[in-house]
């Protein structure tokens, strides 16, 4: 597996002159590597853990440790890499003339390789090296088109935020290493249990902030909406589909494996942060005109949902209900899998729209369904599954998360019930807003009349891109219809880190692929039957429509009389999300600039309307800190005055101080 990625990387460097061949070569080897990765991970999930240590006697020991949890993540990585690689062979054609493809291919393969290493590192030093390697390589990928100034800004914010994250991770590893004496992860586990509660809490908090910065939880999320849109689409599909998940992977490993999730209030923090990220993520997504930025915000939202699942499972685990905690963990893992599938699909969709219309702004698009019918259907599937519509994959994981939240009544402490119910309400609000946001996305981009030249001459994308998207679309339907096969796999993984398998006692798989949680009384769902029902019932309206065929004359849309053929009085994306803007005015603080030019005092010639949403977090959290540092360092610069006399004065001063220090110390 590793070999394939390496071949991909090296080949793309060698052949970087001849674009076409090298792009095929590098991306196909990546796809092949993904296939083997998938097989390898399934074998580990059903087989036993896999150890390989190629350590030398010297200071740096490199070893691999692949248990069920990391195998699951390798599976997730491999699936998305497989589809995205096929997609990128087509997508990369856009860069043929302009950019160096070998460069992209090389970075792409190393990026995947580093992600896989991150997931199966077995000691802290190697983990940190590979973790930062992943961020550095993804930084290069983000800055691939570095002509545009905003890509540079995005790259810079991204690399600095990940570096701060690594700083926190380093701190938490230090605490572990302090108690366990050595840096390998095996010793972290016993160390985790023996630590004093304060140290345990500190280690958890640092790890949570560190990995949260990478996962993009709310206070630390500002880099995500910059970095993902700046990267080429196939890379951003991978980044938000998979890279963020590696942070979740480490969070699970640290909180469950190392610290045994014993701190009771940890679960509440994770839950609260998850809920806030979900809400704020989607709120910003709804009002975002830029396609890829909207998808980046919605990744923050989905990370929030995964964290809600994780938080609930930690709460249950801490209050001694392993079975329900296993269910909640399964819900989180399932949503993680689904998210990497449909988010990958949507990013690829956005990429193909960008490929054919060369613009990311929804306001300028419209009516593309007539020009790109195939990708429209695929993206529709993606949109339906992300807004958790029944027969699709999003629904199952959302249903599971809701059920795990609803199961809280088994807990006897009331605070948990209230907290979980509030987060359930917020989860519902996020779900609805997600539907709202993606409806706006699909409606504005694909339906009605094209609003700009770009949209008018959009053309269908080439085959590999469609195939890539097709794979993911098929997967999201399958994941939606056949959760029955996925759940036992997830349960085995959840059992690996929670200890009890939820499957044996509670979730049983009945006929027709029904999942029921009889731990209480018969909560059950079976999507295959639901879909079957939908299809059968389809007949009734079909019959009504077909009985006596009637003519269907085509005529102008109804515009209260005057003909409206232009796209000007269509509902624009901004208008569509206006109600939400009004309702959340305090959060967005919308700024409006209107500019009107008058041909004569009465006749308004043109009217330009500009509304901007204020990035609250950036304004009030990050800029003050940066300004403070700048002001302080500007003052500090005065030390270097340039006059030699001042410098001699410094030496004289320090001499006197030390002298006093000695005399005080000495006598």
């Amino acid at each position, binding site marked *: 597996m590793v070999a394939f990625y390496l071949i991909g990387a090296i080949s793309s460097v060698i052949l970087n002159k001849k674009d076409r061949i090298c792009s095929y070569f590098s991306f196909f080897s990546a796809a092949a590597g993904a296939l083997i990765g998938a097989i390898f991970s399934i074998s580990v999930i059903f087989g036993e853990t896999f150890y390989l240590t190629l350590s030398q006697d010297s200071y740096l020991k490199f070893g691999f440790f692949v248990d069920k949890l990391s195998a699951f993540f390798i599976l997730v990585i491999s699936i998305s890499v497989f589809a995205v690689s096929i997609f990128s062979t087509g997508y990369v054609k856009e860069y043929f003339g302009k950019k160096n493809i070998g460069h992209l291919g090389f970075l792409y393969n190393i990026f995947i390789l580093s992600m896989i290493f991150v997931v199966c590192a077995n000691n802290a030093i190697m983990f940190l090296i590979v973790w930062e390697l992943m961020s550095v390589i993804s930084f290069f990928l983000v800055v691939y088109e570095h002509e545009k100034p905003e890509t540079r800004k995005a790259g810079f914010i991204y690399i600095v935020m990940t570096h701060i994250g690594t700083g926190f991770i380093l701190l938490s590893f230090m605490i572990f290493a302090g108690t366990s004496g050595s840096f390998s992860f095996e010793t972290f586990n016993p160390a985790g249990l023996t630590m004093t509660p304060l140290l345990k809490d500190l280690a958890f908090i640092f790890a949570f902030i560190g990995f949260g910065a990478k996962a993009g939880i709310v206070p630390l999320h500002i880099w995500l909406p910059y970095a993902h849109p700046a990267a080429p689409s196939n890379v951003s599909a991978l980044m938000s589909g998979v890279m963020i998940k590696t942070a979740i992977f480490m969070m699970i490993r640290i909180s469950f494996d190392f610290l045994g999730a014993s701190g009771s209030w940890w679960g509440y923090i994770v839950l609260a942060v998850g809920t806030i990220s979900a809400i704020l993520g989607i709120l910003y997504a709804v009002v975002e005109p830029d396609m890829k930025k909207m998808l980046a915000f919605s990744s923050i939202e989905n990370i929030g949902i995964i964290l809600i699942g994780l938080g609930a499972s930690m709460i249950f685990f801490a209050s001694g209900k392993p079975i329900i905690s296993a269910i909640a963990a399964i819900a989180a893992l399932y949503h993680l899998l689904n998210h990497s599938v449909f988010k990958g699909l949507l990013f690829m969709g956005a990429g193909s729209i960008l490929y054919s219309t060369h613009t990311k702004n929804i306001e300028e698009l419209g009516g593309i369904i007539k020009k790109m019918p195939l990708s429209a259907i695929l993206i529709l599937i993606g949109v339906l599954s992300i807004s958790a*519509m029944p027969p699709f994959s999003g629904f199952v994981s959302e249903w599971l998360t809701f059920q795990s939240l609803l199961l809280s009544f088994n807990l006897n402490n009331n605070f948990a019930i209230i907290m979980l119910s509030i987060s359930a*309400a917020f989860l519902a609000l996020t779900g609805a807003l997600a539907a709202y946001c993606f409806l706006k996305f699909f409606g504005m981009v694909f339906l009605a009349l094209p609003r700009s030249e770009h949209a008018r001459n959009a053309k269908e994308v080439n085959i590999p891109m469609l195939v890539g998207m097709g794979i993911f679309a098929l997967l999201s339907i399958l994941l939606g219809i056949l959760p029955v096969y996925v759940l036992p796999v997830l349960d085995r993984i959840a059992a690996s880190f929670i200890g009890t398998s939820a499957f044996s006692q509670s979730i049983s798989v009945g006929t027709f692929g029904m999942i029921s949680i009889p731990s209480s009384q018969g909560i059950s769902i079976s999507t295959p039957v639901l879909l079957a029902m939908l299809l059968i019932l389809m007949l009734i309206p079909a019959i*009504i429509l077909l009985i006596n065929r009637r003519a269907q004359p085509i005529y102008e849309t109804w515009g209260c009389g005057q003909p409206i053929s232009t796209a000007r009085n269509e509902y624009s994306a901004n208008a569509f999300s206006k109600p939400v803007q009004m309702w959340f005015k305090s959060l967005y603080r919308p700024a409006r600039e209107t500019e009107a030019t008058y041909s004569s005092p009465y006749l308004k010639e043109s009217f330009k309307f500009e509304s901007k949403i204020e990035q609250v977090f950036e304004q009030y959290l990050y800029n003050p800190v940066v300004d403070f540092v700048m002001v302080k360092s500007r003052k500090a610069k005065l030390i270097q005055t340039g006059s030699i006399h001042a410098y001699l004065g410094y030496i004289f001063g320090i001499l006197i101080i030390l002298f006093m220090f000695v005399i005080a110390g000495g006598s």
Partner: protein
Amino acid sequence: MIAQIIFQLFIIIALAPLLSGIMKKVKAFFQIRKGPGVLQPYYDILKLLQKDSVVSTNVSWIFHAAPIVSFVAVLAAGLLIPIYITQLSLGFAGDLIAVIYLFALARFFTALASLDAGSSFGGMGGSREMFIASLVEPALMLSIFAVALNVGSTNLGFISQTVSGLGFDAVSPYQILAFVALFIIAIAETGRIPVDNPATHLELTMIHEAMILEYSGKQLAIVELGAMIKQLLIYSLLANIFFPWGIATGGAGALAMVFAILVYVIKIIIIGITMAVVETSTAKWRLFRLPELMSISLMLSFLAIVAFIIVKGG
């Protein structure tokens, strides 16, 4: 098993227009006018089925698919809701959350179709509908939470069975609170007066109507029927979760079923009338005051949970 499904379908499709006819009749009565006959909706639908349907130029396949999908989604939800018998043959296929998400699917497609025509009415209707939906869902979820807390499961058949088993002492404080919350949500879901005015085509007040403005002929018939069925289902939800007395429990004889159907029809009519009374007595609220209405229902369901904890927690 299949017979039971078809029978349930038949009841739903038959009763839906009757219910809206009765409600129109009651509203007319309150507005001291004679108003159309109770069976008027049936005639409307039959008339529409004979008409041509005019389709706008810049429309894609979604416009044609949307009515079918939304009608089917609502019907599927119908099969999951206990109308007259708790042991539904397809009961295991979905629970309360599945029903809500089926309604969401229906709403999603109608809103999508509204955008397709490219007219500003459709866009406005779609955006307002989704806006209200995003307000309704948290309140809805919390009320389900309240109900599920008491019963322990969200499976509809199971809920109505346990509540009917409880007999009269089911009417405890949190049940009532949950009912009122659900009632307010029902108004929003079915597009009744304080939230949306079903009867008019005036841009200011119409939300649901605006979305289906473009439809005509057979497609309009399907959409109208779908809306009526949705209304019926929501009311039957209200009826069978909170006052399921008289619903036939599993394995009961034919007689019990007939009795159950009769009781069900009466209950639905009572709720219809109360809804009509509410409609005529209140004026339509401004769109941006609706969040207040929704937060009332949110608070109510939250109180229901707290009440439940106090009662059960002790």
